[in-house]
Every structure is written in structure tokens, then in C-alpha cells.
């Protein structure tokens, strides 16, 4: 019987690498992000072969209010960064405040999107532009909704004292997903709202 002392392999290393969950979420983000790449490619492909854009005499989307809520959504990443820092200092109270703030900002954006959908002058069946606009922004909205549902679970876990300075992988990976939804919006906003005004 050979017994090998693998440089004290049984002792957890003092400087641990990324947790497994971090790998899992990063790979989910890679594949979900590719869905948006495919959809935005579809948008620009359809636009490139279309004689007019937007099609069917639809006006390019109004920029004023959505710009405001874009700022709100992107800014919601700040409390999320703060939340992670707070729990690293073992500050559960500030973690919960920050999570709640990010949740409120995300919710505000989603509510605005609901109003925007209700006030659209076109329907999803009208033409390819209308279909692309509604499906792409709608899919982003669904991702945000899922983020809000995740947030509820994370906030409940925080309220029950689940996290401390050494144990908060859930907060880490949840914030990664949250940032992802925000970053995707930068691309969706630039493509569907800003670029539609370029002639």
C-alpha cells in the first residue's frame, strides 16, 4: 500500500478559488447571453434587408422615459455591489437594505415596461419590426422578473440569518446574474431604442 502525502492535500487551501456555483452561473450567463446575441442578430439582419425601418410607418421608440428607467435599472447594480461588500464585513443589516433597494429599482423598471407595452401603438402581429421589438424587450423583462423572484429567495435567506462573512456564495452568484440582466439591457437599449433613431 502506497500512501502519498499530496502536499497536505486534505487541508483546504488557504486561498480558495472561485466557488463551484460561480462557475455554474457564469456558464448560464454565457449561454443566456448568446440567446440575446442571436436575437439582436435577427433584429439587425431583418433591418438590413428591410427597405424601411421601423416597418409599417411605426415611429422609432420614444427615448425620454425609457432613458430615465434605463438609468434606474443600471444603477441597481450599485446596491448589489454594496450588498456583497456588506456581507463580506458580516453586516447582514446593510446586506438586506441593499438587496431591497436593488429589488425596488428592478421592480420600478419592470412596472414601467408594463406601462410601455400597454401604451404601444402597434401589436406583436403587425410586422417583423413589431415582433422583434416586443419579443426582445419582453424576453429581457422575463429575465428581470426571474431576477426579482431570485431576489425574494435571497432576501428571505438573508432575513433568516443564512449568510455571514464566510458563507455567502448565494449572494455572490445572485449578484452576478443581476449584473448580467443589467448589462444585457445596455445592448438591448442601444439596439432597439437608440439605433432605431439612426437613419
Amino acid at each position, binding site marked *: 500500500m502506497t500512501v*502519498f502525502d499530496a502536499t497536505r492535500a*486534505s487541508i483546504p*487551501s488557504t486561498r480558495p478559488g472561485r466557488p463551484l456555483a460561480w462557475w455554474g452561473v457564469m456558464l448560464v450567463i454565457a449561454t443566456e447571453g448568446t*440567446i440575446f446575441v442571436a436575437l439582436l442578430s435577427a433584429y439587425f439582419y431583418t433591418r438590413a434587408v428591410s427597405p424601411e425601418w421601423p416597418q409599417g410607418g411605426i415611429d422609432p421608440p420614444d427615448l425620454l422615459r425609457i432613458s430615465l428607467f434605463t438609468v434606474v435599472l443600471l444603477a441597481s447594480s450599485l446596491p448589489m455591489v454594496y450588498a456583497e461588500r456588506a456581507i463580506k464585513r458580516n453586516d447582514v443589516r446593510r446586506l438586506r437594505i441593499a438587496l431591497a433597494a436593488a429589488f425596488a429599482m428592478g421592480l420600478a423598471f419592470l412596472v414601467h415596461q408594463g406601462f410601455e407595452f400597454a401604451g404601444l401603438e402597434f401589436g406583436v402581429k403587425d410586422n417583423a419590426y413589431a415582433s422583434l421589438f416586443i419579443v426582445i424587450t419582453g424576453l429581457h423583462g422575463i429575465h428581470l422578473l426571474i431576477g426579482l423572484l431570485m431576489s425574494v429567495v435571497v432576501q428571505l435567506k438573508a432575513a433568516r440569518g443564512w449568510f455571514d462573512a464566510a*458563507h455567502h456564495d448565494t449572494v455572490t452568484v445572485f449578484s452576478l446574474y443581476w449584473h448580467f440582466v443589467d448589462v444585457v439591457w445596455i445592448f438591448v437599449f442601444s439596439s432597439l431604442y437608440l439605433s432605431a433613431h439612426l437613419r
Partner: protein
Amino acid sequence: MTIESPLRADEPDLPSPEEVWEDRPGLLGFFTTVDHKRIGIRYIVTAFTFFFIAGLMALVMRAQLARPDSDVVSAETYNQLFTMHGTIMIFLFNTPVLFGFGNYLMPLLLGSRDMAFPRLNAFGYWVFLGSGVFMLSSFVFGAAPDGGWFAYVPLTDKAFSSGINLDFWGLGVIFTGISTTVGAINFIASAFKLRAPGMTVNRIPLLVWSFVAMAFMVLFAVPSLTTAAGLLEADRLFGTAFYRPASGGNVLLYQHLFWFWGHPEVYILFLPATGMVTTIITVFSRHRTAGYVWVASSFFGIAFISFGVWVHHMFATGMPTQATGMFAAASFVVAVPSGIMYMCWIGTMWGGDVRFPVPMLFALGFLVIFLLGGITGVMVASLPFDLQVTDSYFVVAHFHYVLNGAVVFPIFGALYYWVPKMTGHMLSERLGKWSFWTMLVGFNVTFFPMHILGQRGMARRVYTYDRGLGFDFLNMIVSVGSVVFAIGTGLTLLNVVLNHKRGPAAGRNPWDADTLEWATESPPPEWNFEASPVINSRHPLWDEEPLPYVAAADGESTEQAQSPIGASRREVAVTTGFSAEADGHFRVPEPSIVPAIVGLGLFVLFVGVLLIGAVIFWVGVVVGLAALTSWAWQCEVDRS
């Protein structure tokens, strides 16, 4: 070769591995298990069930085509048969059977105890099963998909395919894509983080590399299929205009999205098959794999290039020659890494002492068939030639040489090679040799004449043809060949059925192989290894006997030595990504019914969309979300 278990605890306060690792008994254990070996075998058995179903469909088609002006089946039935034959073989056999082998083998190859996300792994299987049942149930309603396995618009739009048929296809491929995606995530995370200490990047078995390359392709290719099929279903069910030219949509968009997945998919199937061939050739040549770095790099080279060649499926759509020329050039480039791998296989055998048991025969059969399929691949990558043979039987011949010959032959070789590990019993060499030679002859008699048929102008997907066009004799040959091929595959089925419980005992390492799965018993216990092996070479079982194990450093108690490396705790050692140094451990989650319930919720959700039944849909959403919440609530990543 015997390997003593160095760390089996005799102390009464430590639980036995059985207590810690075994599943609950009976049906409850069946639905709750997270053991990668049970899940892997399940994948393989389910996928082979689909294989034989789709094979029978092919036989019916060949019965129809054996003679001109035949009416064995109607044109409508024939359309359903060729659509579902392709769909099942790609989505429900080839992909999942490779995932089954990957699930079974990867933790064993890495010297670990389970995958990185065991519950996700169980979930992946239930989704695969659900999507298979979903798609096949279309036959019960007499409404199987009938638009070809790539379901081009405008044929598949509601205006021209008004039935529910295509919805089974569109929703089914989205459904099964979820299973493929979570499986891929598991492969990558496991290969990066769960390797045995000392298994540095340049010691990872090539089979693992092939699965990692495949998994990365899945992550970036499947979203494109999901988008293609998702927009198709939106058009069909909700009247959107993505692919409707009359409303500003574009039908070519579908083809772009589909083939941006479709071409990588070919290599998603092919790469793990080459990984299996590399393993088998190495072991039966009893020689280190020639050009380890070259083979591993070729996997990733092929994976990378495969994302830049999708337009070669669309040469006949009238795109500008400058564009198609670029894609033709990129397609030729695929031959370079393929050729490198081929040379490495030859080099391994050249330097080695080659034996010819059944797995090796299948690997050699693969070499011959892949060479032919590769040559016709270079031919159809050439623009003028492709325009001549597009949608002809030449293309059918080509893709069966690569997808049947170059993927199914390695899978059969893998069965003969690894079933003894899975069951503890050897398969019959004699029956296996009969099976191999019958399959090899049947395969070539079936598919080689199709090249000629295609060049004579026989179009694919025709349900019959007129007498006297020069197709009659060759079609009869093809049909006879298909029966021979079917008998060959049936002999392997018979072999497995007869011998998986009664064959001669396999022992730990019947093939004198080099990788870690052969260091443990056959079949391996639930905990895989008594203790974590330590890796000092690419071919650990050839270079070190007995294998060294992780042990306690001086001054530690036995209990510390058991954790995280012993089997007395439900834990897996985690190592760093490149250097494979110890990096803590993670608790393997307990068996759970939750993944199966999330899968059930998804199934109900998809049925709801299929029937446009809002109530069913929301029931599925609520069940799925409730189960997901419970999953998240139980999740213990913060506690390990």
C-alpha cells in the same frame, strides 16, 4: 491487479460509505437519485430505446423505397417518418447517449465522486426523458412532425403546415435543448474543479477534453437553435411575423439561426466520439497517445472553426459568391485539425502493440468510414460541387457516413469497452465480432450506393420514384443493406441483454487500461473510490501501481484524513482549475425528488403551450416555480 483501500475507516464513530452514499431503496430511490452513474446509465438506456425506434422507422422507409412506385406507406406517413427519424437520431439518441457516457465516465475519469451539480444532472435526465416523450407522443395523435428534421420556413409556417405536427417539433427541440445545456454546464464545471489532486491541465484524459470542447460548443450553439425554433413557434402559435415576408420578415433568417446551431451540432456529436476512439486506440495499442497536445488542441480547433462554416448548408439559397466563397474556404479548414487527429491515431498504433478486441474493431471501422465521410465532406464544401448535389442522396450518404459511421461506430465501440465497467460483466467477444462485421458490411452496402444515386439525380425525401430512371437496382441494394445493418445492431443489443448479468466477471481492469475508471471495482460503488487518487501522469494506471492515494499529513487525526477525501463523508474534493491543487471540498447534495418535479412542471408547461391551453400552462409554471424555489431554499452552497 489489486488495489487495497488505504483509508477504509474501522473506527466506530465514522459512518460506513454505504450509510453515507447509498440511495433510498425502491421507487423512491429511482426518482430521487443524484448518482451520476445511475443517471448516466439511464441516459444510455433511454437513448438506445429511441435509437431502435428511429432505426425501425428507417427500415420502413427502406421498405417503401426498395421498389419504384411502391405504396408500403403513404406520402404523408413517409414525410413523418423521415422527419422523425432525423429528429430522434440527432436530438434523442446521438446527443443524449454521449451525455450518458459523459455523465457516467467523467467523475470516474477525474477521480471524483460525482458531478459538480448532481441535482442539476438528475434534472437534465428528466428533461431529456420529458422532451422525448413529448415529441414521440405526436405519433399517438397521428400528428408527427412532417417538415423535415430542419423544418424550413415557409413550408413549416402555419399557412402551409396547419396541423399541430410541427409544434411538437418546434417546442420539443427547445425542451430538449434545456437538458443539453444543463449537461454541458455540468461537464465544464466538473472538469475544471473536481479533478483528483495532481491532475494538472496537461494530464487530463483526452476523453475529458473532448467532452469539455463539446460542452463549450453546446453553450454557444444551442441558444441559436432555441431562438430559431422559438421564433418559429411564435409565428405559428401567436401570429408574429419573424419569418413572414409579407409582413417584413425573412425566411433565410431561420436558416441562418438554425445552421448556426446545426453545424456545430455535427461536431458536438463528433468530438466525444473522437474522444472515445482516442481512448480505445490508446488502450489497445498499449501506447501513450501520440501527440496529446495536438489532439486536445484539435478538439478546440474544430470547436472554434465549426462556428464559422454554417453557411455551407445554405450554398443553394442564392447568397453572394464572395460570402459563400469565404464559408467554403472555412469549411476546408476543418480538414486540418481532423487530419491532425487522424495522424495522431495512426501514430499511436504505429508505435504500439496493437490488439484487436471488439472495441478496437469499432474504432478501426470508424477510421475507415470517417475517412470516406471526410472526403465527401471536403467535396460538398466545394461550392460548385455542392450546388450540383444539394438535396440529393449524395448529401444523405455524406451525413450518414459522418453521423452514423463516425459517431455510432465509436458509440458501439464504447459500449463494448465500458459496459463491463458498468455491469461488472464482459460482453461476448464472439457475438461482438459478428455484430461488428455485420454492421460494417451493412453500413457500406446501405450508404455507399447513395453517393451514386445522388449523382444520378435522386432527390432526398422523395417517398417514391418512377421506374427506369436508373434508381431501381441501387435502391434495392440499399434496402437490403439496411436490413443487414439493422441485424448487426440487433446482435449488439442481444449481446448486452444476454451478458450484462451473466457474462464472465470483468474485474477492475479487464482491458489493462490506463485511466482512473479502471482503478475501482466493476461496477463501481456509489462513492466511486475509497479515497481520492493522486495523479502524477497522463496514464496513471500504466505508470504507477498501485495508485497512490491522498492521505493525512503528519499529526492529523484519522477523521481529518477522511475529510474531504475519504468515502465516509458525502463530500468531493475540489481542486484548482489549472494546477489541480487542493481547494477545499463540497458537500454532495442528498437525493431529492425536486429535480424530477421541476422537470414535470416543464413538461406540463410545454404541453400547455402546445395546446395553447392557458390553464395547463400556468399549472406547469406554478409547479415548476414552486419546485425551483424549494430547490433554491434547500441549496447548501453557502454551507460547504
